[in-house]
């Protein structure tokens, strides 16, 4: 983790006083809104999902200690195509865009760490792409458990199933076998 940068961001968020508690089911951001902040999750958990004409698709989770945002909207300024929803009571530090870039641009160290953060995100995206191309449901589960061993403690089954692109029934069957 890019410790120095993260610490700088959290200190700045503390002094700017932007802390919020979301109750279960509350949205950090909704489809159609423009993302203006990144969120550091102090406690609790969130999921990121997208709604199509036919269904709801969970694409990411955020746990304690992670940074989450509607990334494409944050970067492009276009309306978000995703919702971020609190899975239970979640305490969040909100870091507005301007504050983030003030800190990132403080010097070569923070800039370097921001780059590393982004690189990490890109690699995660490619991992996810392979997840989605993986035929075997068992393999898909194994891949995700490898990255997040505590998945089943953090997140309700139906959202894990959606993330893994299988029905909750299939997921139960795999776990029991």
């Amino acid at each position, binding site marked *: 983790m890019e410790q120095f940068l993260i610490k700088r961001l959290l200190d700045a968020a503390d002094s700017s006083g932007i802390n919020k508690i979301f109750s279960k089911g509350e949205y950090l951001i*909704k*489809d*159609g809104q423009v993302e203006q902040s990144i969120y550091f999750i102090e406690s609790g958990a969130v999921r990121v999902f997208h*709604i*199509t*004409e*036919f269904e*709801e698709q969970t694409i990411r989770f955020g746990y304690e200690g992670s940074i989450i945002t509607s990334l494409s909207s944050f970067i492009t300024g276009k309306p978000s195509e995703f*919702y971020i929803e609190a899975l239970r009571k979640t305490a969040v530090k909100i870091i507005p865009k301007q504050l983030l870039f003030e800190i990132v641009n403080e010097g070569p160290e923070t800039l370097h760490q921001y780059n590393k953060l982004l690189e990490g995100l890109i690699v995660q995206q490619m991992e996810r792409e392979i997840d989605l191309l993986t035929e075997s449901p068992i393999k898909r589960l194994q891949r995700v458990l490898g990255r997040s061993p505590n998945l089943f403690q953090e997140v309700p089954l139906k959202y894990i199933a959606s993330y893994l692109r299988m029905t909750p029934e299939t997921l139960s069957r795999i776990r029991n076998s």
Partner: protein
Amino acid sequence: MQIENNQLIDELLARMKKCTRSVKGFEALSVGQLQFKNGDRWSILECLEHLNLYGDFYLVEIEKQILTNPRRNTSTKFKSGILGNYFANLMEVKEGKITKMKSPKDKNPSNKDLSIKTINRFLKQQEQLVNLLNQCRSIDLTRTKAAISLTNLVKLRLGDTLRFFCYHIERHVVQAERALAEQHGIVDNKSKSLLQHG
């Protein structure tokens, strides 16, 4: 009925535009208002979810027929079929008519987790519908057939399917508008000028 494709599509698009605008208005309402039920009548969200469930079938079926349609000797004039015309007329919102219909069990929106996401899903379905309607301008709407949600054995002329589907949307959007108006005590609760599902 006999009608030029473009005229039919334009009419349906106009109706759908009104419905979309109406539903967009619902986005500003509170959850309580969206979920409010007047007795057994459907809430706004239930009306929309019912439409979503129909859309799940018909948007897929309509697109399927557009893609597999042969397009030889295509006529751009649509002539209604007997059954299709009957269903379409049944659905159309007309003043002063009393017809209660039971909705099929699998299209029952009750007891479901409904929220603002329901509205969003509906709006996305509307976008897709507009897309499909425009693609239909160059399709033979008489010779191309589409199944109905109840059974694969009955196929209607695509033009009638489009009419039926759009009128159905109109009907339930109007029902949702009533559900909202009733909350302000504007509408007489016993008024029966609309076809409503029980």
